[in-house]
């Protein structure tokens, strides 16, 4: 068993876990001194997407809600930031505003689905359909009449030139590539730690209980729909953060943020990494993104061909994902070793 999963999930992390986190944080701080900015850029986008994967993985693995449409909040976050920042000329407040708008929408959509008691697979489909609605609607805004404030929505082409985050103590200059690296790495690490700690709280334990047996939790007196809505909104917020960071990373937003391909990728990252852990989605994102990035420069021909095979192999052979499978293998070896020791 992976420590995060099941029995010990609710326990506060041990000292070794905190030391690993501290080491990783230190490594992140040091990294820009040792690697070129192209690699920092590659890593930053992995961190951004890892947040998106975390939002889906958390919702699926811990709350048992399979949402194919985390891209809704990802895209909304990006677009909200672009529109707010370009309109106001500020970046700090738009950053916050861009988190609030998708969160509000996720509360609305979540209320609609969870309080309507839409069954599991239909919830997945509804989220997918909603993200497709957003994609189609945004795509059809290329005419000059689609303006929010002074910003053209630009349809298919998306909004280029999204301003980078300016921080008051940096003399108002937009964040450099190193700055974006620190921002994305920090955000990912913080969200990961926060989610891990959340699982030890009453809220965290209750949503895991609901995943295991929603009816029992209700019979124990928990308003399960409220908890599920809470988890859904939280995940929406994480996806929104990912979307805002994406806009800051590439300085553009486009309707592709909502599309089927993007939604599919999130699922692939989570599946590859492991759906019942928090660290799995992060690793999955890293591996898949790095692979497609690398495939694009070595020329294997069709990248989708390789990704398709990866997805099939994982579902058929390692349905629990990479990390849990490795964890199992470790556990097996350890038991074997321990077993041999005992018989001696």
């Amino acid at each position: 068993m992976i420590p995060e999963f099941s029995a010990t999930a609710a326990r506060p992390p041990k000292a070794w876990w905190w030391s690993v986190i501290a080491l990783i944080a230190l490594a992140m701080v040091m990294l820009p001194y040792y690697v070129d900015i192209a690699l920092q850029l590659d890593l930053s986008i992995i961190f951004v997407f890892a947040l998106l994967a975390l939002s889906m993985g958390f919702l699926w693995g811990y709350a048992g809600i399979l949402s194919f449409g985390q891209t809704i909040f990802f895209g909304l976050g990006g677009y909200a930031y672009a529109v707010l920042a370009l309109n106001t000329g500020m970046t700090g407040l738009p950053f916050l505003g861009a988190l609030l708008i998708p969160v509000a929408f996720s509360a609305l959509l979540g209320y609609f689905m969870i309080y309507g008691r839409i069954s599991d697979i239909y919830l997945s489909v509804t989220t997918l359909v909603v993200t497709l609605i957003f994609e189609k609607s945004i795509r059809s805004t290329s005419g000059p009449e689609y303006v929010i404030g002074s910003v053209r929505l630009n349809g298919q082409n998306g909004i280029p030139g999204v301003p980078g985050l300016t921080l008051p103590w940096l003399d108002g200059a937009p964040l450099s590539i190193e700055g974006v690296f620190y921002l994305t790495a920090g955000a990912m690490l913080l969200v990961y730690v926060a989610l891990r700690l959340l699982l030890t709280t009453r809220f965290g334990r209750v949503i895991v209980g609901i995943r295991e047996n929603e009816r029992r939790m209700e019979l124990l007196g928990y308003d399960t729909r409220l908890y599920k809505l809470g988890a859904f909104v939280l995940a929406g917020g994480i996806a929104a953060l990912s979307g805002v960071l994406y806009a800051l990373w590439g300085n553009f937003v486009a309707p592709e943020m909502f599309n089927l391909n993007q939604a599919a990728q999130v699922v692939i990252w989570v599946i590859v990494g492991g759906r019942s852990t928090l660290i799995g989605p992060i690793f999955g994102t890293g591996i898949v993104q790095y692979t497609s990035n690398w495939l694009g420069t070595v020329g294997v021909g069709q990248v989708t061909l390789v990704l398709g095979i990866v997805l099939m192999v994982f579902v058929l052979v390692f349905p629990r994902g990479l990390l849990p499978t490795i964890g199992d293998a470790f556990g097996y070896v350890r038991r074997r070793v321990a077993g041999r020791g005992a018989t001696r």
Partner: protein
Amino acid sequence: MIATTLYLIVYSISLLMLVSLGLAIIFGMMKVINLAHGEFMMLGAYTCVLCVNAGAPLWLSFAAAALAVGLFGIVVERLIIRFLYGRIVDTLLATWGLSLFLVGLVTTVFGPQAWSISARFGNVSFGGMNFSAYTFVLIAISIGMVVVTWLIARFTTVGLIVRGTMQDATVASGLGVNRNLVYMGTFGYGAALAGLAGAVLVPITGASPSLGLFFVAKAFINVIIGGHLPLIGTIAASSLFGTIDGFVSYVWSSVVGEVSVLIVAVILLRLLPLGITGRLRSGL
């Protein structure tokens, strides 16, 4: 004006039935959501183009497409799907992988460009309007597909066995029915319908690697809204969405048509979480 609207609506409905029946059968009978459905259609389209280019008549190419994709479906069922029965999400993910794989493979083999065939059907005119004669062929085939499926399910032994197995697999296998064979056959039949749909679309859209992508979302929504009864569900959902799309696209524009279909779909999911046929216990 009225005739045109009516024609567009019937055409829209037929297109939807054509592209979603195979998916609906596989979903309704086997509880498998086949996300590679669009790519099955694409394979059918390429089969059709290859046959026509090799000199086969069009109708024979349609049959060849249905047969080839049907066989391919059986292979897929044996190699992938059968390990995943009862795991609805996993089948969805595995077929998603298959879909990406097939798009990549076909692009590598046939190139990214659309392939076309020369098929002259001419046009029919009435009321000062020309209508493509082929669209009437498509409407006929689409209706034919539904009718034939209904006849098989209702009046043949095979249909009876399949319905029985899907209702209660243990009882059926107790009666000496080979369950594997039934699943294989059903999946193959659904795939064959997808292949036929793809082939029938060739004169309209050509065959290209992205063919599946254009239709799979529509088919998917249609099936989910239709619910678990493949025939009634497909007919009901196609009629509803076809009417909306056909009418709205003609009176306003294609964008408004597509978005209104999606919005109606979301509202329906809220009202009927199990689809239109969700509350019906029996039927086809």
